[in-house]
């Protein structure tokens, strides 16, 4: 338990720090790299939560695809690879206040409502886990219970694909 908590602490700290750097850095490319750190930490958190399939997908899709996309975006919009003049607009103050306000409210609500609720301990074997809530179970669920949403999401992806092409096409 203690090991898990320590791991969580490290992961949380790194993700929060990286996130903060990401929204404050003056270099677009650095921001993308900080994003990688955040996403990676979150993926590790999924593993802590025994959701290894999500963690893997996170790594594959986010870090493998999305971040790359971002980097392409940065390149194509010809941001300088070094420092840029000004990446923030003039309402940082307002944004910070809003964010802190939301954080305060969320924090209050969460602490107030969930207090010290503990996550249940899973004393099962690897096989048992895999059958009940592991990758296999997730796969079964997707193609049975959640088949229709899955199809809808597929169509959505297709639409996004077409949309992106239409938008970005040069003509």
């Amino acid at each position, binding site marked *: 338990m203690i090991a898990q908590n320590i791991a969580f602490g490290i992961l949380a700290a790194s993700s929060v720090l990286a996130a903060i750097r990401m929204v404050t850095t003056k270099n677009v490319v650095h921001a993308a790299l900080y994003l990688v750190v955040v996403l990676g930490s979150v993926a590790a958190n999924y593993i802590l939560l025994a959701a290894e399939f999500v963690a893997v997908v996170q790594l594959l899709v986010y870090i493998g695809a999305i971040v790359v996309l971002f980097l392409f975006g940065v390149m194509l919009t010809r941001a300088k690879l070094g420092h840029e003049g000004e990446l923030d*607009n*003039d*309402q*940082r*103050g*307002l*944004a*910070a*206040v*809003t964010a802190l*306000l*939301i954080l305060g*409210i969320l924090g*209050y*609500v969460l602490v107030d409502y969930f207090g010290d609720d503990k996550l249940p301990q899973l004393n099962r074997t690897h096989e048992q886990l895999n059958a009940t809530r592991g990758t296999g179970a997730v796969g079964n669920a997707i193609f049975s219970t959640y088949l229709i949403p899955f199809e809808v999401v597929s169509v959505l992806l297709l639409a996004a694909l077409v949309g992106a092409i239409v938008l970005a096409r040069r003509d």
Partner: protein
Amino acid sequence: MLEHIWIIPAITFTSFWLILFFGKRLPFKGSEIGLLALGVCLLLSTVAGFQWINHDSAEVHFERAPVAAAAEGGHAAEAAPAAEDGHAAEAAPAEGEHQAEAHVLRTPVDKSVHWFKIGDTQVDAGTHVDGLAIVMLFTVSVISFLVHVFSTSYMSGDRRFTHYFASLSLFTTGMFVLVTASNTLQGLFGWELMGLCSFMLIGHWWEEPKNSNAALKAFLTTRTGDIGLLVGISTLFFAAGRTFDIATINSRALDGQIGHTALLLAAIALFVAVIGKSAQFPLHTWLPDAMAGPTPVSALIHAATMVVAGVYLLARLYGVFWQAFSITHSSINPVAVVGGITIIIAAALAFVQTDIKKVLAYSTISQLGYMVMGLGVGAWTGAMFHFFTHAFFKALLFLGAGSVSHAVHSFEMDDMGGMKKYMPKTFWTFIIGSFALAGFFPLAGFWSKDEILLGAGQNGYTFFMIVGLVGAAMTAAYMTRCVYLTFFGEYRGHGHPHESPAAITVPLMVLAVFSVFAGFLNAPKLFGGEWFGRLVEDATFVHAAIPIHDFSVTAALLSMAVVSGAIGVAAWLHFGQRLPKGLTERSTPARLGHTFLANRYFLDHLYTGVIIGGIKGPIARAAYWFNQNVLDGVVNGVAFAAKRSGSWIYKWIDQGAIDGTVNGSGLGAEGLGGSLRRLQTGRVQQYGSLLFGGTALFALGLILLVARSN
């Protein structure tokens, strides 16, 4: 007929629509429908009149209050409620020389249908026919019919001949609705309908801004008075126990079932409406301007509809005024005062007019003052009688003026003169009208005016009797001036005047006959009996409360002397060319007086320039400025301030600056002054921050609420 009196307004209302939709395709452009409708109405109202005369006089007995008691002070008040309760026999005969004389009332005829219902309050639409309504119906029908006849010739070839007749029909409908209404709400319908029609008719030639301005002024002035009507009707509705019914309101007011405060409030409010509609001081200024309309319309407005609607309202809800102003107990009250002031100031204005129609307009105001004063001093019958006679001779004078202007194509008396020899028929009928108006024995105006003055004297309103006499003298004098300038002397105009066609002169002659003989209907027994009084007094509320007085020869002689004297002096001055020439140049007081009169006491300047100009100009603009800059500014300022407060708070946290209040108010002011466009920065992120921030705040509120309610 009495049961189905609603047919009369229905006929004219139908005629309005028929003329409007089909008038233009008919051979006489719709005038035939109007004439036919009014002819039928005249017939029906005459029939109704005869039926009323022969109507069952049901067993509603009451005794007249003794006059002497009223004059000597206050006993009548005790007698009145008692008499009404049917105990008059004990109360009345106790007093002096006038033995209470039993009267038998004709029962009013009521008929109603369900109109609408809210909660437990059901409102019926209905007709209430009594003597007053019958007389009004008859008078209105006669005048309106003659005006229709007159108009066929006078208005022929007009741009909007058909519209004109349609409006006349609607106008008459409005008056019919008002006089037959059994409740105040229906009365309001008729009242406003007339307002609308007067707007349409005064602005008949709306191509010229002058005319549409006059129409607007008429409508707005009367509408200002209508504030009082709305308030008054509302007050009475609740005070009389959730009813609009006029008879009920009157009887409850007289019974003392309505608290005096509410009654007084209602009476004052209603009187404001009367002032507006009947052109009493200080809201009389619209009437002379209303001369912008065609002349027959002026005749209709002045003689039988519109302006007398106010007087009618006063007479119809007399129970309310009677109790509220304690008319028997006092020797002064607002109604009498306003009426008295109006008599004098309007008569004074009539002297300086050069437009013949304006002379007549001011004379109408002055005569309406008589009616209002008559009602104010308790001479109910006299006032109604004066309305009746005035209708005929005032219509006669207006139509006569129309006839003259038809010949000389002008209303300026400077363009007239010597018309006597060109238009003899017009001249003689006009002379009759003038003498009747002046109150010359034995023409109609004499009897009715005399009755008002007598009532004022006998009811303890001596001062107002004197006012009335002065007014009578002034009336006689300015009418002499008017007649002289129009019909005598040399012709000063251009063109060749000629007598008008029969469609114009016949109505004049009919009216002249009425002007001569109408007065005898209520002349003292000596001359034919108080027939009119007995006819109208059966109105529901008059009861025993109103004292009636025997004809007094002394009073009659006095008023005759005053009138003859005034005519004599005026005639001597005018016919003898003895008017002091250049008086206004030589004498400063005279010049000031003339200026004062010529500017109509500057009331118009006050209304148009100061009040309307103020509202339309600076006040409305200021309100709009407030809207655009302050309210909208707040909206935009909120957005702006939200945007700025972010950076402000940032600085504040950052630098620990303390002077927050000063900055804040400075920012607030800046926000207020912010231009429209600041909200609309078009920056999605700013909207986003407001959205997020707002959501967070709402969530906060929700949390607090739930926390509290748990």
